[in-house]
């Protein structure tokens, strides 16, 4: 009996001491951050702007927001370090900031361009026990980042939700952007033989009359957010942006692309095609101080628009075969050009070093320090093996000539 009592007391004591019951927090005392902008000024001060969900604007019946209250609150903080800026921001709020459900971290180009500032920022994020490492990490291409919160956000009520969903949708409908969460960026930074990238957004003024923004706090949005392209890093140093087209090839190489839409000129007409779920197989080899990169991509292509006047029922199949070959050729050329552009930036964002390390670990140990010189001059060969899929599609052009 004494042993039992002792055991129960021990369990209770251990539970109390391990549980950290002092960290209990009533939910109503939390201010939930939906997105944060991190920026820095010329003097090296950090500027933090957070969008906080205004929970009192949510109607008790759960039918959405009430009309008279803003769905969010924008709060700013400034300090010599990120922690100081966040503290400064916290001091202005009667509730405790809760960043675990933060959807997006917007980083200014100024912040990521300054390696020292950017490193300090990452150090803060990974030291903070509450900060969520699964937040989307994006670089904003513009100055004056506050305008993000004055941009149209579709049918969403909060910018963070909008950008997060937009990036996810982009992965399904196109491959022109990358979706990197905080921990994924850092994982690529720590990995050998690969340089990290980050998502990119930019806003631009809306043309014509301001759009009515049904959900956002700005009833009349003056800007529009676009998620396209990516920011390329060498270690933790920002190098440059790559456009939507290059991002598509990046996603193909990484097997992240679900669909790639492209147009091709054929017989002075434009053929619209869709590459579906391409699968890339990369082989990196070295021969006489020369690195060779062979990429073989297999996938299915679908013709979304193919209307050429001289095609009739008889030669339609043959012309489609021709399209298949030309599409492979077109994509291969585009891929080689895009990869070379990426390598020319001095960053191995495609992870060729990682592939080479996996296949030749001994050689990698010898050349890893000079890897930059090798991949910059690598001979890249891309081959597409495409299969034209015509399941459920009509076999002939829309307008049939008599």
């Amino acid at each position, binding site marked *: 009996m004494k042993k039992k009592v002792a055991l*129960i007391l021990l*369990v*209770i004591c251990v*539970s*109390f001491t*391990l*549980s*950290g*019951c002092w*960290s*209990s*927090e*009533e*939910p*109503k005392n*939390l201010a*939930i951050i939906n997105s944060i902008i991190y920026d820095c000024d010329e003097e090296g001060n950090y500027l933090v702007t957070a969008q906080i*969900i205004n*929970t*009192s*604007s*949510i*109607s*008790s019946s*759960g039918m959405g927001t009430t009309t008279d209250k803003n769905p969010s609150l924008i709060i700013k903080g400034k300090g010599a370090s990120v922690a100081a800026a966040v503290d400064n921001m916290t001091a202005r709020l009667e509730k405790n900031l*809760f960043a*675990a*459900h933060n*959807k997006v971290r917007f980083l200014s180009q100024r912040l990521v361009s300054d390696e020292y500032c950017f490193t300090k920022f990452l150090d803060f994020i990974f030291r903070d026990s*509450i900060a*969520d490492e699964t937040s989307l990490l994006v670089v904003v291409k513009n100055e004056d980042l506050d305008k993000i919160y004055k941009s149209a956000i579709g049918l969403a009520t909060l910018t963070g939700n909008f950008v997060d969903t937009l990036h996810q949708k982009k992965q399904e409908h196109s491959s022109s952007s990358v979706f990197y969460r905080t921990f994924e960026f850092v994982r690529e930074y720590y990995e050998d033989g690969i340089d990290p990238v980050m998502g990119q957004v930019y806003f631009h003024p809306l043309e014509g009359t301001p759009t009515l923004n049904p959900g956002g706090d700005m009833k009349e949005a003056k800007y529009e957010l676009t998620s396209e392209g990516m920011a390329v890093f060498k270690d933790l140093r920002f190098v440059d942006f790559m456009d939507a087209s290059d991002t598509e090839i990046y996603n193909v190489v990484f097997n992240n692309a679900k669909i790639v839409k492209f147009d091709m000129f054929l017989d002075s007409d434009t053929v619209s095609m869709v590459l579906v779920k391409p699968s890339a197989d990369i082989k990196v080899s070295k021969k006489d101080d020369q690195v060779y990169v062979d990429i073989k991509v297999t996938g299915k292509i679908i013709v979304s628009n193919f209307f050429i006047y001289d095609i009739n029922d008889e030669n339609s199949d043959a012309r489609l075969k021709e399209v298949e070959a030309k599409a492979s050729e077109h994509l291969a050329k585009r891929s080689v050009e895009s990869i070379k552009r990426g390598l020319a930036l001095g960053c191995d964002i495609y992870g060729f070093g990682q592939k080479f390390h996996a296949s030749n670990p001994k050689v990698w140990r010898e050349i890893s320090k000079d890897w930059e010189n090798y991949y910059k001059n690598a001979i890249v060969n891309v081959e597409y093996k495409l299969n034209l899929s015509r399941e459920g599609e009509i076999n002939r052009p829309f307008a049939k000539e008599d």
Partner: protein
Amino acid sequence: MDQQKIPDSELMFNQLKLDFKNSFDMKIERVPTNSGEVVLAYVDGMINRDLFNRDVITPLKSDSFAGDIPKSILTSIDKVDDHQKFIIEILNGSLGIYYNGERFISDIRKWEKRSVETPGSENATRGPKEGFTEDLLTNTALLRRKIRNENLVLESRVLGRQSRTKVVIGYVDGIANKEVLALLRERLDQIDIDSVLETGTIEQLIDNKPLIPLSTIGMSQKPDVIASKIMEGRVCLFCDGSPHALYLPELFIENLQRSEDYYHRAPIATFLRIIRFIGFLISVILPGFYVGMATFNPEMLPPSFLVTIISSMEQTPFPEAIEILFLVLMMELLKESGTRLPKALGSAVSIVGALIIGEAAVNAGIVSAPSVIIVALSAVAGFIVPNLNEFTTIYKLIFIIFASLMGIIGLAAVLVIMITQLSAMRSFDIPIMSFFHKNELKDSLLRFPTRHLRFRPASIQRENFKRIGK
């Protein structure tokens, strides 16, 4: 009183008057006959008046009565030598006859009793609808009709010094676990109490851990349930005056099983058992889990749900844990009042409680809507497993208290304690969690098709395992 000396009719009359303390319902009559006086004693309201007049009084008053009681009385009659036994039989409803120094009893019992009805607490969509009544003989007859086998043994004994309640142990000889049977007899022998009015009293007296809020003795009001249980090797117990029959040992998994599981096809029976298990978990853990999550680990809740919680808690005055505890107590109050009140009023109380008080409390900002939903969901889930009601109520409160103090670690600690306690519990020396035997898994949380249930539960059965086939 002197057992050897046989008093004459007047002495016996006075003796019986004295024995029954002149109670108004105890009828003691002196009937003059051709061959002297006969003393009749019975409890008014417990004998069949028609039989009494036709088969007892008329033959006694007839001219042909020559003093031979067994031959004259037309009903079954037994001679009793012991005066104390004579008294007890009269109290049990028999007619006591005293003549010329000899005591007889005649079984012409008849009293008002409830007819066989469907038990309200064990409704079933399929299967027999009949239920036990308060009459012991009716109950044993109902069981005997289910198992028409000479091996069905119904052992009678009397419990309660004052109430002298008849208790019957039922089992199938050759199938029943003999160790359990011996243990039951031993524990019944140890009972020394003045009155036993219900099987609930016996249950607590024969259970070795009455403080734990989980009964290790099963209870049912349905003859088909009791019949199936004793055919698995269990032992049942009836008590005169109680429509609830006990069966033992009871394994924990049986709380999640219903008699109709065996009448339905296997897939739906399995699905329903899993639903009951989920219901049990929701009922016990959900309120505590919600408190732990909301106050210690809000990051684990989906953002939109957390926003809803915060928005609905904006105006409420109490901390989350207090709110949930308050609502759980309110729900218990409503449950208790709904159960005790007459049916019509009971449903009115439920409506007032659930709709009016709940909604008004939310609108007034006293409690938040998610808390009401969580507690209501837990209560509704609890109704799925009514047998575990006491267990879920107590552990639900423990979970809430520990979760509010220690969060997820508190929950985990209570969960470990709960599982340890369940694992350590035994029902008549058989571990209640012993349903993990490969043969028993076919009829535990899952229910295999009937043709696969070839063996009786291995944890209960010691011999005669086969149920299907020879």
